[in-house]
């Protein structure tokens, strides 16, 4: 009996959400530092 190939589940929306949220947090923090730096 031949093994059936495994079809990966389609869950790309979770990947997109995680990359988006991670980027927003890091970019948001960077922008907050940059805005504070303009007041020096």
């Amino acid at each position, binding site marked *: 009996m031949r093994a059936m190939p495994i079809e*990966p589940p389609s*869950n*790309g929306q*979770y*990947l997109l959400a995680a990359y988006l949220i*991670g980027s927003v*947090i890091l970019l948001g923090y*960077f922008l907050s530092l940059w805005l504070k*730096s303009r007041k020096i």
Partner: protein
Amino acid sequence: MTDFSPAAKVVKRGLVISTLGLIGLAGVFVLALGFTPVEARQGLAQKIFYLHVPAAWSALLAFSLVGITSSLYLWLKDPRLDRFAAASAEVGVVFAAVMLTTGPIWAKPIWGTWWTWDARLTLTLFVFFLFLGYLALRAAVHDAAERARFSAVVGILGMLLVPFVHLSVYLFRTLHPQPIVLKPSAPSLPTSMLTTLLVSTLVFTLLYLGFVTTRYGLTLAEEVREDARNAD
């Protein structure tokens, strides 16, 4: 006239390093999406790992360095150590926020639930809250020497939790995956996945350096301003 130039130089250096880190982050996304295979059982959601694991690494690095510099501060009483600890704690909280949001987004399709109160997740949340408390404490105490001393003690206690977070998957029954790189035997990953993970870890370390340098410079500038106000 108040001289901000040393602080401004530190801030500028930090912003340049952070910008390089953010460009590197875009490169990590390209690597993860275009050059790593889709995992057979987890699908595309597995690629969250290239963001979640390096964010966890940076957060735990940040919190460990808070503890180390806090210990040194209690010994040497050098204000630079306290300033660094404060900067590292704030940046650590930011990376912990990335870790604690991307983790549940991975868990939902893989475990079927956003969150479970298992040892690794619960301990990580406690460490996150502890360092939020550290930042609240710093904001509440106005005397600089007292603030540095009190927060150094909290920083050291926070650092003591870091090894428990890393070892929790061995010490307790847990759903969280076991370490695949930082473990006694060789890393168990295909080369393309391991390379992307290592590149991402380097990028997150660069981001950590950039953010901490900028935050350190901003605190230095605030102190210069405060000293000038007191001298008037």
